[in-house]
């Protein structure tokens, strides 16, 4: 069934069950998403997609609209929130884009530029996070992990067993790689895990900077262009 909502005052028709992000896209309004992957259920972990639904700030990727809903995405205070959430992620880890293999194809980096983040508004923490280089094919660079949990919820081996888990709580939360399960993954499954990580935390060893500057994912088409044509990843 179709329902009608307004996005920044513009009426649009969407299917029942559509999210705030879907409605925004239907209206041609860009709301950045980061942890959301179009092929999977919304995780709602990163909170970058802050938008307003009937006066309340929600995560656009997971909040559903109803008939007559009023959605706001472009308001200045919402843009500031999104920029600050992205800035928090940069301040919390060690994001050395100039030397990162994921640069140019990193969702966090691409979304940060769209929110207008020039430098984080929060003090950079420069945490000392241990990397896990122990696997034959996967390099887990925790410096860049934003704890989106895509890998934890979505990467499985042929038996359905998880490969990545979370340990610790609060600021000590970190991703662990199960080396035994990881060893049983096919090369394609490893490549899929690398691609699934929105940042450069899960990397394939021995590949490195395989795409030249200018030909990388977001050099070719920006994350905004992709989102507006419905490619949410």
């Amino acid at each position, binding site marked *: 069934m179709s329902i009608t909502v307004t996005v920044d005052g513009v009426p649009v028709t969407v299917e029942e069950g559509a999210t705030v992000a879907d409605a925004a896209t239907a209206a041609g309004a860009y709301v950045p998403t980061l942890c959301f992957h179009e092929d999977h259920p919304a995780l709602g972990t990163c909170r970058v997609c802050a938008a307003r639904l009937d006066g309340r700030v929600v995560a656009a990727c997971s909040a559903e609209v109803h008939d007559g809903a009023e959605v706001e995405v472009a308001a200045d205070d919402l843009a500031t929130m999104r920029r600050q959430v992205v800035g928090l992620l*940069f301040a919390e880890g*060690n*994001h*050395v*884009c*100039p*030397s*990162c293999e994921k*640069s*140019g194809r990193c969702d966090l*980096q691409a979304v*940060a*530029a*769209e929110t*207008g983040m*020039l*430098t*984080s508004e929060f*003090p*950079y923490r*420069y*945490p*000392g*996070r241990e990397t896990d280089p122990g696997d034959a094919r996967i390099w887990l660079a925790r410096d860049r992990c934003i704890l989106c949990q895509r890998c934890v919820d979505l990467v499985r081996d042929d038996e359905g067993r998880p490969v990545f888990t979370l340990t610790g709580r609060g600021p000590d939360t970190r991703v662990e790689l199960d080396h035994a399960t990881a060893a049983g993954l096919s090369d394609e499954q490893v490549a899929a895990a690398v691609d699934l990580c929105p940042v450069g935390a899960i990397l394939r060893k021995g590949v490195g900077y395989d795409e030249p500057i200018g030909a990388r994912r977001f050099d070719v088409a*920006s994350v*905004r262009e992709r989102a507006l044509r419905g490619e949410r990843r």
Partner: protein
Amino acid sequence: MSDDRRDLSHELPRTPVSEATVAARRGKLTVATISLCGCWGCNLSTLDLDERLLPLLDLVTITRSSFTDLKRIAGRCDVGLVEGGVANEENIETLRHFREHCDVLVSVGACALWGGIPSLRNSIGLDECLATAYLDSPTAVPGDRPTIPLHPEIPRLTDRVRPCHEVVHMDYFLPGCPPSNDAVFAVLDAVAHGRPIDLPTSLTHYD
């Protein structure tokens, strides 16, 4: 120790500027640049403006730059471009001098914005870095007493490499490692024509 101090470059005698030059500069915007703890790459992006520099120089005078290596700004300056983060006491002093003398101060490049590559030492710690470089160095001269250099003329390192805006107020930020020549041009062109600096997303890069 003041009697031992060598003359700094801005205290050395210099040829007076001709009246014609002074007249030609009158009414132009003054711009100063400096490299703190950076690699000069951002300043090279400015040089990369190539022929676009020439019309800009009809509107702008570059008073102090990394190319002249004058340490101090004489008088007031409209715009200061700061490359590099803050990694030692001399960086702090120079940055404060720029803040005092410039109306608008711009952080240029990853190092100025968040410490950049030099800030990789932050998560390791200064003691360990110095020990690796000087005490346990594989290239140390055999038989020499391992020494960490310490001398009044060598600026002391700060515990962590800091972004400029954690030391003084910065008015604008230009990301990139380095920012492209187009991004530097966008800033200088806006400043020269009295427009607010507003970097388009297409020129916002962190690498």
